[in-house]
């Protein structure tokens, strides 16, 4: 039987896998990448449980994990699709944590959520960070009905910066043209984000599914802070990845498949459609993710000392 303590140990092992570059990136990781067997691919954007609007293939957690592993994914950061609409966020996070323990031992990194419009959200933040040891929180402002200019968001970012928690912000989950008309959710406006980044120097943010709606200029400004990352979800157009890294050379793009809502292959093939050199490919496949998560681990270690 896997106890909570053992699971936390295994998560740490998973995190070590995902962040091993902190100590050994210069040697084993890069050489392993070339050699093949140590191939690394960190999927920073996957989900467990059911998309509310349709059943999708491989939406049972065990199927998803199996499929990701077969595609060579070495670690996956998982949110819960229940988080979009459920109001009992604590139980959503609890089920996510449990399922990651059951089916993704050392492989899935649970990314719980906090809804800063709900009463007592700071307790849920504390539970995620202290009890469940989550290094990343995933926010859904569009589905939770708040803007990033909300004062409570500032408080949440302040806590995240203080506790070295990485924040993922889901900009959109679905094209507004295909949404259920009774639940039309607009993409998140990221313009208040630069204010919070200026205010909290320890804040690190990863934007998920941002490329359809976030224009390149504001994205470039955020990237210039050195603390904003983005996955490649909803990045469209022929050779789009190549064009993006050419247009914004310092862009911190991470591999994110948005599985199982999107076909995994759609994200993976972007790596082939664009001509990218070794350094950029490695940074997309794992180095940026390691960097994002690694700061959290280092921060948490220092905190505990």
């Amino acid at each position, binding site marked *: 039987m896997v106890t909570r303590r053992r699971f936390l140990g295994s998560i740490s092992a998973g995190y070590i896998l995902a962040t091993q570059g902190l100590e050994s990136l210069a040697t084993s990781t890069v050489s392993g*990448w*070339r050699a*093949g067997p140590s*191939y690394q691919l960190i999927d920073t954007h996957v989900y467990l449980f059911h998309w509310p609007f*349709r*059943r*999708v*293939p*491989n939406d049972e957690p065990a199927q998803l994990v199996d499929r990701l592993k077969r*595609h*060579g994914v070495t670690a996956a950061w998982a949110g819960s699709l229940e988080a979009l609409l459920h109001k009992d966020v604590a139980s959503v996070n609890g089920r996510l944590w449990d399922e990651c323990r059951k089916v993704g031992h050392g492989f899935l990194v649970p990314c719980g959520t906090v809804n800063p419009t709900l009463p007592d959200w700071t307790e849920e933040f504390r539970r995620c960070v202290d009890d469940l040891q989550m290094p990343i929180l995933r926010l859904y402002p569009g589905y939770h009905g708040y803007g990033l200019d909300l004062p409570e968001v500032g408080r949440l970012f302040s806590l995240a910066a203080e506790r070295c928690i990485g924040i993922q912000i889901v900009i959109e989950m*679905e*094209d*507004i*043209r*295909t*949404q*259920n*008309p009774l639940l*039309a959710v607009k993409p998140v406006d990221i313009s208040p984000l630069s204010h919070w980044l200026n205010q909290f120097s320890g804040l690190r943010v990863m934007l998920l599914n941002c490329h359809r709606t976030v224009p390149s200029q504001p994205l470039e400004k955020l990237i210039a802070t050195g603390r904003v990352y983005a996955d490649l979800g*909803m*990045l*469209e*157009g*022929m*050779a*789009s990845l190549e064009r993006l890294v050419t247009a914004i050379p310092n862009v911190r793009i991470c591999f994110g498949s948005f*599985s*199982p*809502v*999107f*076909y*995994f*292959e*759609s*994200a*993976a*093939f*972007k*790596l*082939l*459609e*664009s*001509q*990218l*050199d*070794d350094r950029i*490919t*490695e940074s997309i496949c794992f180095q940026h993710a390691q960097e994002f998560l690694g700061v959290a681990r280092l921060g948490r270690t220092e905190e505990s000392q």
Partner: protein
Amino acid sequence: MATDSPDLKQRLLPTQFEIWDAHTHLGGLPGKTPEERLERLLEGASRLNITRVCVFMGMRWQYDPTPEEMQEANQEVRRAVERFPQQAFGFVYLNPNYLDASLDELRRHVKDGPMVGVKLWVARRCCDSALDPIAALAHDCGVVVLQHTWIKTTGNLPGESTPQDLACLARRHPDTAFIAAHSGGNWEIGLQAFRDLPNVYAELSGSDPTAGFTEMAVRLLGAHRVIFGSDAPGRSFATQLGKVLGASLDDDTKRLILRSNLKNLLEPILKTKGVQV
């Protein structure tokens, strides 16, 4: 490992499929001439093992082109496909709001020229009887009609066809073959609109790679009525190809979708144009 390295490509991309793309454009590509743009497009397609593409509309996007604009757009595509006749197949872009000019274009570029299909976009809803002569002449020429279809939650353009509109047209022309581009975007609804119409093919391009799309198309219409298309360069070859290669379907079904169904539709007209298939 660079992305063009054989190792990464072998790991990710199956090699057992030949791939034809039913839906590409010249608009939005770099290049001063149509030929340059098509060359770029084909180079991008080849990175994902796509060997043949259908291409239509000119270097500019025009919702409701005048006869002169239509002629210019078609001439651009014709120049481009004449440069790459074995790899790129031109469809003539028509505007039913200018019926006589459209029929002239169809004769000039398909009956008497190198093009092998008809493209209709958003100038006029295709349920309109004004499209009947176009559908009839396309059938006489032995070519398929590719009609844009969308059901937008945010509202369609005034002349933008829904899958239900296409079903209406297809019922009036049971001997003409139609490709429902985008399968309505809202594909769960779109696919149901032409389930019982054997002359309508579902095409997968131009929407997000939402899992389950291709599986539902096969379940509802059968594997022989589903066709791969990308809508590149506006859409990524990668995301759109993932809809087929990532689907929970067997390899034989994927072969039909990726090439055979489109090839079977185009083969007779391609042979008359001297294209080796």
